[in-house]
């Protein structure tokens, strides 16, 4: 395996710089993770509400079907 010196150097510099600035970037990383959790939570709530809306729609369809069935029976009688 051939050593690619610039890549090696870039790796060393990135590692050293990362270690040096990690404490400074911690609040940013924390906020990004928090935002991610909040967004996924909001998405789950939205999905659950859409499921409820679908249940409402199905209940409405069921009621409408029953009503129509009832009026058809009345007309037949």
């Amino acid at each position, binding site marked *: 395996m051939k050593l690619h010196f610039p890549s090696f150097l870039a790796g060393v510099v990135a590692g050293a710089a990362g270690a040096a600035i990690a404490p400074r970037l911690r609040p*940013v990383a924390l906020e*990004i993770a928090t935002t991610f959790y909040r967004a996924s939570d909001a998405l789950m709530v939205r999905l659950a509400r859409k499921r409820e809306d679908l249940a409402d729609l199905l209940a409405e369809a069921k009621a409408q079907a029953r009503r129509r069935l009832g009026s058809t029976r009345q007309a037949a009688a």
Partner: protein
Amino acid sequence: MRWLQIAHILPGRTRLRFPALRGDAAAGERIAEELAALPGVREVRVRPFTGSILVHHEPEVTSATLALAAHRILAPDRILEVGERPPRSPDVPELSRIARLAAKAFREIDRDVRRASQGSLDLGTLVTLGFFGAGAADVATSRELVLPPWFNLAWWGYRTFMTNEQDEIHSADGVDAG
């Protein structure tokens, strides 16, 4: 703003929605008890996760009766009718929290660099020198001057123009507007 919405109405079935119910299990229990005690109410299902209050009742019970009973317990700022859009907060933050924290972090890193170098370097200069150094090291070791892909060149060309000709662009905007 806390709002209670009449989300869906059918004869004998009403869904109310109160988003603030989330994280308030006690309010969920109280509202379930209050609504279940109303005459003509058969079943109340509360789901705090979505803020949903599903009530099965006699057809004579109106959504207004249920909303008023819920209002007594939950005390919302507004009651929204079916299909009404929830109010939006007028406050729009100037900058996102992440952007603010990132700016603060980079200001602190900049201060660290200036302190460590006793004023010889700042973060901007260090990064610039780093890029120049990495480029020079690459050319020195590979002994090749490789051109970046066309889209990088096109982007850099555009950015260089926009950065260096800012004054001209602004004055041209003024001329066009006038």
